[in-house]
């Protein structure tokens, strides 16, 4: 985190209000994009808005590195009366991730929307995308439980609409199912927050945490806990509740694949970690029981079963989607260890997954101009005709499979280490088996793309330059963080500390 102190300075006036600007920037950009005169200008607004948000996230990172926590009271009302933004290392990590991926996705969108979105809807599409970004950023910044719900829904509603507006009609039922499951998840969350409010009389997470600690054993709190974790589990595609995800990712326009796979479920995971560790705290019996007896087994099952499912998919984006669910399993496995090592390893893996998955979806989306194909077999031999795009795809796949010298390897390593430290040998076995399965589906994709002869005369050309730039930035990041992982490791270690988990060894 210390890296941020010196480098990312902004005008003090701006830094003071960075927290709300982080959200308001993309919100204003969303309005502007909707009103802008042309597709091109909407795209530029979108890129500008996300870059602004990223800048603000960097400012906040500097502040957090200096002061630990940034508090911002809306309208000057201090909690518990007012709504507060409270940004700590965990929140900053997510804000950086979401806005960073947002910039990449916005750059990428300039060229692909033409291929995938009908004319006349493209400006609105950019607007919806920015709304989504604003919602997710708000989620990472807010310190208020109900406010979190509102931001969650702001981003979700944008997402539901954006998934459905594609050329593939199968996206429509997928979006509808996602809407139903997502709304139920969000409503469960509200119910849970209601229970907690009834028990504590506050909505501010920090206050809530303080009062819960003195409350002792309470049925109301326990019921609230159950509703919150299951509701967020639905949103985060926790293993048996992931039914909505594969179709939604696979059939959505590629911009949504790129952005959602990196951020949407991750944001729900963020909120879940926030509630598990900050609001409730692992010292509470029922939290510990939940982590050990629900989250860990479910995560392990996800890592294995969904990896196995991914092997048998014929649609290439569905392979990636099932792999996403499996990776959520890895992350949750780390989180459920409830140790500093485990949580930081899980967050590190989350960071890498965000880079990898958006790179992979980006590579596939970049080819959308050339081949109107989704089946794996349609990609036979594409590696020969589109080497730049597919090499980036291959790098992403290597990282996904955890090949050494890529970021994916490091985070799996950290997870294994954390599992050893927690004496969860079964978890080591789960990671090992699931890694093997991961190699099989990764190998299957690469084998088809690079080693098979093209199936048809229709040759898939290279993705456009505007797509290659963000794609290679992400791919290069996967390799760079495989060599020098200090940034994500610092971020995730600081984030785990912000959750109140002290590392066993020396402080970083």
């Amino acid at each position, binding site marked *: 985190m210390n890296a941020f102190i010196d480098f990312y300075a902004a005008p003090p006036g701006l830094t003071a209000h960075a927290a709300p600007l982080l959200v308001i920037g993309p919100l204003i950009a969303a309005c502007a994009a909707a009103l802008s005169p042309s597709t091109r200008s909407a795209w530029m607004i979108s890129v500008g808005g996300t870059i602004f948000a990223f800048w603000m996230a960097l400012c906040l990172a500097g502040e957090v590195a200096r002061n630990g926590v940034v508090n911002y009271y809306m309208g000057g009302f201090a909690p518990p009366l007012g709504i507060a933004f409270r940004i700590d290392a965990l929140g900053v990590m997510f804000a950086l991730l979401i806005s960073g991926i947002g910039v990449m996705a916005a750059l990428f969108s300039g060229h692909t929307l033409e291929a995938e979105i009908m004319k006349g809807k493209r400006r609105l599409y950019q607007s919806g995308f920015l709304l989504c970004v604003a919602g997710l950023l708000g989620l990472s910044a807010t310190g208020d439980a109900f406010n979190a719900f509102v931001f969650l829904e702001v981003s979700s509603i944008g997402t539901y609409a954006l998934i459905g507006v594609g050329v593939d009609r199968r996206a429509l039922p997928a979006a509808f199912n996602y809407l139903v499951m997502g709304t139920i998840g969000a409503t469960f969350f509200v119910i849970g927050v209601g229970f907690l409010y009834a028990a504590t009389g506050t909505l501010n997470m920090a206050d809530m945490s303080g009062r819960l600690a003195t409350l002792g054993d309470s049925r109301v709190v326990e019921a609230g806990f159950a509703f919150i974790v299951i509701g967020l589990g639905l949103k985060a595609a926790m293993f048996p509740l992931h039914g909505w995800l594969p179709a939604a990712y696979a059939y959505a326009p590629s911009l949504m694949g790129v952005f959602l796979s990196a951020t949407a479920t991750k944001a729900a995971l963020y909120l879940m970690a926030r509630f598990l560790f900050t609001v409730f705290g692992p010292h509470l019996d029922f939290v510990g029981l939940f982590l050990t007896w629900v989250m860990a087994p479910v995560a392990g099952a996800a890592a294995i079963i969904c990896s196995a499912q991914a*092997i048998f998919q014929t649609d290439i984006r569905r392979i990636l989607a099932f792999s996403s669910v499996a990776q959520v399993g890895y992350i949750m496995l780390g989180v459920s260890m409830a140790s500093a090592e485990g949580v930081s390893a899980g967050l590190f893996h989350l960071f890498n997954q965000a880079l990898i998955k958006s790179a992979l979806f980006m590579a596939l989306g970049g080819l959308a101009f050339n081949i109107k194909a989704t089946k794996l*077999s349609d990609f036979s031999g594409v590696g020969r005709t589109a080497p730049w795009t597919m090499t980036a795809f291959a790098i992403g796949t290597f990282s996904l499979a955890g090949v050494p010298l890529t970021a994916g390897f490091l985070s799996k390593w950290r997870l294994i280490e954390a599992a050893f430290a927690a004496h969860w040998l079964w978890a080591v076995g789960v990671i090992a088996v699931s890694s093997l399965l991961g190699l*099989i*589906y990764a*190998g*299957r994709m690469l*084998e088809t793309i690079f*080693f*098979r*002869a093209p199936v048809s005369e229709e040759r898939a050309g290279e993705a456009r330059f505007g797509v290659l730039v963000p794609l290679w930035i992400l791919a290069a990041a996967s390799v760079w963080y495989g060599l020098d992982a200090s940034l994500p490791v610092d971020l995730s270690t600081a984030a785990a500390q912000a959750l109140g988990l002290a590392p066993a060894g020396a402080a970083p």
Partner: protein
Amino acid sequence: MTETRSGEQNDPHPQPAGEADEHPLSVLLFSWMRSDLFDRMFLAGLGALCAVLAALELVIHRHDGGGIDSLPVFQGVFGFLAFALAVLSGWPLGRLMRRPENYYRDQPDKDPDNTVEEEKEDGHDG
């Protein structure tokens, strides 16, 4: 040495068998091996060599480990027996363990080197 000719050649322009198409280096280096004289004398020559090597033990003092390797011509006899054992065990073991070529059903019936494109699309494991 029997000279058999079959039509199955990878060479697209088969040439008549025999000495005519032989590489000059081969004539120089190896053609003597096919002579009748070599055929008759080889075993005898080899036997003589072995006898000389055995006899040399009388002249050259051999270091040994003090076990059965101090027996005369130990390494020669051991080498002979070991070689014979390895080769002869090929008969029963072969009967026990040899299976038809396509035992694992992994070979196409046609050309052994045909490429993947001709295979069924889902014909690989994984």
